C-alpha cells in the first residue's frame, strides 16, 4: 500500500523509468538494463492493478525492457567485416528517454513563465462585439441606381445569349453515343434458331456472330438458359477447351 501512494507521482512508464535511472545514478546512455528492469518490475507488481489503461502502458514498457534485457544477455555478434558495431538494443529507449527528459525540463521552465505571467492583468475588449462589428446597412436606393424592369429584362436576355454563344456549334450537332443493348430475348430466339439448324456445334461457332463483349455474355447466358430448359446438352473435355453443344430441338 505504501508503494501505491508513491506510485501516484509517476506520470507514466517513462517517468518511472527516468526516476529509477536518476535514483540509481546511472548514465542514461548506458542503462544497466537488468537492474533497472528488475526494479521496474517490482514497481509494476506493487501497482494498483485496477486501472487497466494505466497498467497496460506500464506493462508495455516492462515488455520493452524485458525484450532489451534478453537481447543484452545474448552473446553479441562481432561484425568485423563491415566494421560496424552492432546497434545497442537500448538505443531507441535512450532516445525516447532523452526527449522525454528534455520536455520535462522545458515544462518546468514554462511553469515559471506562467507564474510570472499570472501577475499581469490584460485589458479586455470594452467595446461590445456588435458595436465593433457594426456595418452600415446597404442603401437599396443607391444600390439600384437607375435600374428599371426593362433594363433587367435586357440583362436577362444577354445572359441567355451568352450561354447560347458558349455552345460549340459543331459539337452540339453530334448525336449522343448510345449504350449498346443486346436483349436476352432476341438473342434467345436467334440461338434457338441456330440450334434448330445445326445438330451439334461448338460454343465458338455460336460466338462467330457476336460483335461485342456484352453480346458474348448474353450468348453465354442463352446457353445456360437453354441447358436449364433441357433444350441442349453440353460437354466440355477439359478446362478452357471448346464447349460442345448438342441440340435436342427438332428442326
Amino acid at each position, binding site marked *: 500500500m505504501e508503494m501505491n501512494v508513491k506510485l501516484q507521482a509517476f506520470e507514466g512508464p517513462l517517468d518511472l523509468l527516468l526516476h529509477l535511472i536518476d535514483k540509481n*545514478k*546511472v548514465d542514461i546512455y548506458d542503462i*544497466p538494463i537488468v537492474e533497472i528492469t528488475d526494479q521496474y518490475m517490482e514497481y509494476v507488481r506493487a501497482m494498483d492493478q485496477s486501472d487497466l*489503461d494505466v497498467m497496460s502502458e506500464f506493462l508495455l514498457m516492462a515488455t520493452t525492457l524485458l525484450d532489451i534485457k534478453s537481447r543484452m544477455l545474448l552473446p553479441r555478434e562481432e561484425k568485423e567485416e563491415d566494421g560496424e558495431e552492432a546497434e545497442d538494443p537500448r538505443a531507441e529507449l535512450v532516445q525516447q528517454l532523452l526527449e522525454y527528459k528534455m*520536455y520535462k*525540463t522545458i*515544462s518546468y521552465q514554462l511553469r515559471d*513563465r506562467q507564474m510570472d505571467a499570472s501577475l*499581469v*492583468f490584460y485589458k479586455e475588449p470594452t467595446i461590445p462585439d456588435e458595436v465593433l462589428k457594426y456595418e452600415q446597412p446597404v442603401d437599396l436606393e443607391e444600390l439600384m441606381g437607375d435600374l428599371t424592369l426593362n433594363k433587367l429584362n435586357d440583362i436577362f436576355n444577354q445572359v441567355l445569349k451568352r450561354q447560347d454563344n458558349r455552345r460549340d456549334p459543331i459539337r452540339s450537332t453530334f448525336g449522343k453515343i448510345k449504350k449498346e443493348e443486346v436483349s436476352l430475348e432476341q438473342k434467345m430466339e436467334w440461338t434457338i434458331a441456330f440450334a434448330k439448324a445445326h445438330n451439334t456445334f461448338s460454343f465458338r461457332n455460336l460466338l462467330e456472330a457476336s460483335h461485342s463483349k456484352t453480346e458474348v455474355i448474353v450468348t453465354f447466358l442463352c446457353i445456360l438458359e437453354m441447358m436449364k430448359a433441357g433444350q441442349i446438352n453440353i460437354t466440355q473435355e477439359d478446362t478452357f477447351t471448346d464447349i460442345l453443344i448438342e441440340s435436342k430441338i427438332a428442326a
Partner: protein
Amino acid sequence: MELKEIENIVEGILFAMGGTVEPSKIAKALEIDEKQVVEAIESLKSNYKEQNRGITITEIDGAYQMCTSPDIYEYLIRIAKQPKKYVLTDVLLETLSIIAYKQPITKSEIEKIRGVSCDFAVSKLVEFGLCTELGRLDAPGRPMLFGTTEEFLRSFGVSSIEELPELSQTQIEEFKIEAENEANNVEVTI
C-alpha cells in the same frame, strides 16, 4: 503626424479597444505607415517603463494589448477579486510543452514522446483554451493536428512561439555529462 500625436491616439485606441489590436488596423485608420504605429507603441512602452507606470503594452503574435505592470499585482489583487487560477498539472504542462514546440502535432506523436495516452490531457488543454485543433493531417486516418492559441501566449507571457524558452545544445550536453559523471561513481553491472 508627429510621433507624440500618434502615441496619444494609439494609447487611446489600445485602451478603448482592449484585446489585441493589430498595428496594420491602426495604420489604416490613421492613414499612416504601419512602421510609424509600431514605433509609437514602442515609444509608449518605454515611456511607461521609465515612469514606472501601472500599465504597459504587450505584444502577442504581432498584435498589441494593454495590460497591468507586474509591479502593481500585489495591490491590484487587494481590490480585484483574484481570478480563479487553474493549476496545470505536470501531465498537462508536459503535454502542453510538447504541443508548443512541435506544433502542428498529432496525438499519436505526443504519445510517442510521453509514452502515455494523451486524450485527457489534450482535451483539457483545448477546454482551457490553451490549445486548439488546427485541421487534419493528410495521412491515413486523417488525424487531427493540434497547436497553441493566443491565450497560451498570454498565459505564459511570450509574444510569439519563437520566443519560447529553448533548451540549448549545451544544456543537452550538460545532461549527458551529468549523467556520465554520475555513472562513473557507480559500479555498473550488466
